[in-house]
């Protein structure tokens, strides 16, 4: 959700930054976003996933948009392959965060498989905004740890809460998923290209919903990205 900060000013040259200030920034992001695991727990349980399935997703997938997409697709009756494909496509951006982070953090090879699980929007945004390598490492670790612990705790609480509530739709909790997606999407809509892609994807996603098997329309809608890029390239109006 914080992609623009992630790619802006990787090296804002403001010299040293006190460790305490880095920790404070990191905890702010980690706690705020970590608490939204509650929405995932509720949504997942409301989509018919069991408690162990819900908790395993947060423990092992640990990238919010993909998790919401997966349980949404499964609730909509999508087959497991298309459901997983949609979730995976959403996760691809983490590879690009990893690229940036590996340069900034300079992690030893042995540490990378463990650090990889924390390579997500929020850790990238915090780490890449730091002025020094030491600050970036602290930012990455504190954001990652606080978010991981809270996200999993609140997932569990949300799933338990949903079971206690019963009909989650009566409480409006089925609106949590799309609201999360909208909140993640909003900061990405910076230029005309992004807005065109989003508009085309909405048209494709809704228009094809009645005619294609569940889960497939989202994958077709993803083609809005290369289609718009190709059209802009032909017209020679790359706006960035």
């Amino acid at each position, binding site marked *: 959700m914080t*992609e623009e900060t992630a790619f802006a000013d990787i090296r804002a040259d403001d010299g040293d930054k006190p460790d305490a200030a880095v920790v404070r920034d990191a905890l702010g992001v980690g706690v*705020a976003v970590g*608490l*939204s695991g509650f929405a995932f727990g509720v949504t997942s349980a409301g989509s018919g996933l069991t408690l162990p*399935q819900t908790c*395993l*997703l947060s423990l092992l*997938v640990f*990238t919010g948009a993909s998790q919401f*997409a997966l349980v949404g697709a*499964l609730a*909509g*009756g999508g087959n*497991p392959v298309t459901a*997983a494909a949609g*979730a*995976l*496509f*959403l996760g*691809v*951006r*983490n*590879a*690009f965060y*990893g*690229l940036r*982070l*590996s340069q900034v953090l300079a*992690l030893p090879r042995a540490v*990378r498989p463990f650090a*990889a699980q924390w*390579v997500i929007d929020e850790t990238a945004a915090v780490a890449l905004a730091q002025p020094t390598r030491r600050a970036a490492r602290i930012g990455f670790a504190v954001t990652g740890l606080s978010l991981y612990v809270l996200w999993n705790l609140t997932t569990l609480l949300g799933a338990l809460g949903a079971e206690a509530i019963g009909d989650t739709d*009566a409480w*409006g909790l089925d*609106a949590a998923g*799309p*609201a999360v*997606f*909208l*909140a993640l999407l909003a900061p*990405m809509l910076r230029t005309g290209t*992004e807005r065109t*892609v*989003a508009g*085309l*994807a*909405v048209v*494709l*996603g*809704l228009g094809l*919903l*009645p005619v294609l098997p*569940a889960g497939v329309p*989202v994958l077709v*809608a*993803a083609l*809005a*990205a290369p289609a*718009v*890029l190709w059209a802009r390239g032909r017209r020679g109006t790359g706006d960035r």
Partner: protein
Amino acid sequence: MNTWIAIGATVVGCYAVKLAGLLVPAGVLERPLVRRLAALLPVALLAALTAQQTFADGQTLVLDARAAGVAAAGVALVLRAPFLLVVAAAVVVTAGVRALGG
């Protein structure tokens, strides 16, 4: 069983792309076109998912309380509300509209 297959595939796939970013040499993915596409792919997916989860009921399109809730989330976003408040606005308004509508 199907659910477990989907979970397994997502777990393995999502971890693999995270790790790939940390392990591959920078030059491979740093081509401008690839980066541009990677930045736009989530835009397309999130837009389609938002629309579908707001208006879809199975394979039919409906206009119900969720639309009001997501619209409230949109207003909250315009007002630069924090993430949790955006989600809470959607939930509360959806529940409210449903309660009023019977």
